[in-house]
């Protein structure tokens, strides 16, 4: 086994605000690691740092032993890390199928000009007529359970399902590590259960997962380990049950009792 992702003393400052402060942790191969903490604790910032949306102010990120601290988002994806977003970022004017097809291109090997070349000399007349590619994409849509919306413009899909489309799209890049930023926000209880099943199914196929979640039912149910952030700092780490009963964590969530201190 061993760690697939390691962060070393990761820090991010925005102006005067320290969003992530000196955070070190490892994510083991095949693990589901839950990342929790109150509002504004720096969870999303941490995922943004790992996925390369912006560089850290200090510290390092290692993926499969390779230093990816300064790599850009697109490079990091080609190395094998995919992500979803807290507020979905799907391609709203493309169909569900095209959303997935767009992600299937092997960008580690092909740049824009080689795709231009391909469009004249390799592919079928249109990508959507390429049976092989479509079969793979359909498989992914099936896997996340939205085949019905294959040819629907993504912008017209129900919100809950766009969250699944985003996961399908991330999977299409064949990631070794998947970063999920609140995959169940905005879902109703029934949709929630489906989402849990899906995440476990993905993990069962061998993909390591780092997940931010505020719905405790989800995070406690599926995480192998938990990390708790508070004011950008890691205040606890370990087995879900143990972390959950940690007084520091309870304090962070419930807040201090002002009168008790005076």
């Amino acid at each position, binding site marked *: 086994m061993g760690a697939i992702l390691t962060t070393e003393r990761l820090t991010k400052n925005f102006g*005067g*605000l320290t969003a992530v402060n000196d955070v070190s942790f490892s994510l083991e191969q095949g693990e589901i690691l839950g990342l929790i903490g*109150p*509002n*504004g604790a720096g969870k999303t910032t941490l995922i943004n740092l790992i996925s390369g949306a912006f560089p850290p102010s200090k510290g390092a990120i290692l993926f499969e032993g390779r230093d990816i601290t300064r790599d850009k988002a697109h490079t990091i994806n080609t190395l094998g890390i995919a992500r979803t977003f807290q507020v979905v970022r799907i391609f709203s004017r493309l169909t569900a199928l095209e959303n997935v097809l767009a992600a299937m291109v092997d960008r580690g090997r092909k740049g824009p000009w080689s795709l231009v070349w391909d469009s004249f000399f390799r592919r079928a007349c249109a990508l959507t007529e390429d049976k092989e590619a479509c079969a793979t994409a359909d498989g992914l849509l099936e896997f996340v359970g939205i085949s019905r919306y294959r040819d629907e413009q993504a912008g*017209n*899909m*129900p*919100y809950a399902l*766009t969250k699944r489309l985003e996961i399908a799209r991330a999977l299409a890049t064949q990631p070794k590590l998947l970063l999920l930023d*609140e995959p169940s*926000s*905005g*879902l*109703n*209880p029934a949709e929630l259960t489906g989402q849990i099943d899906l995440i476990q199914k993905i993990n069962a196929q061998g993909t390591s997962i780092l997940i931010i979640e*505020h*719905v*405790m*039912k989800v995070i*406690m149910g599926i995480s192998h380990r938990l990390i708790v952030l508070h004011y950008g700092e890691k205040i606890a780490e370990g087995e879900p049950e143990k972390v*959950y009963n940690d007084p520091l964590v309870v304090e962070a*969530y*419930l*807040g*201090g*009792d*002002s*009168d008790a*201190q005076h």
Partner: protein
Amino acid sequence: MLNIENLKVAYGKAVALHDVSMRVEEGELVTLLGSNGAGKSTLLKTISGVNRALAGRILWKGQEIQNQPSHVVVNQGIIQVPEGRAVFPDLSVAENLRMGAFTRRDEDGVASDLEEVFELFPRLKERRQQLAGTLSGGEAQMLAIARGLLAAPKLLMLDEPSLGLAPVLREAIYRVIQQIYQEKGITILLVEQNARWALKVATRAYILENGRITMEDTGAALAANPDVQRAYLGH
């Protein structure tokens, strides 16, 4: 005083509030608890007339105010102090405060309120001429609250006033809120993450989860309720 009935709000396809009913009576301090993304800010924005309601009603003293333009709502004395210390960074502290009293025509009243506000927040008086963008986080939050007070609110809605503040500043904010409630007698609707404190000061409280009200009781009762900790942690 404020009655919300079966309110539904959506951003495009994403439904943020499904069917929310709640009320705030005159003289109450009502707390609204809920985790990230539960729809608390959406609810406040809809009350303030910034978001549109798809269905349901918002009644203010018996009058429907849902989907009225925000300036009409504010003119009724329904004042929101937005989350994230949303002051006007390139206006001075004094100008920010003047903006708070934008709807008021009673110059004398504003002047005396300004004095009171400066008593409550002496730091702001010192920094009157400073640009609001240069204030520290705690000072900016004080300014946002002070600005809300200058509007002579009948109902003051505070959206996560302690968010992102260091513990010491948080305590100071709490004290001020209690002062405003107890000494000035202003009705308050409070959205706050610090469950323990927010339930302690509340006359009543609601818990909002995934766009639905899941619990409602007096603050003390909810605080004593063994389910609440779990409900709040979402067990």
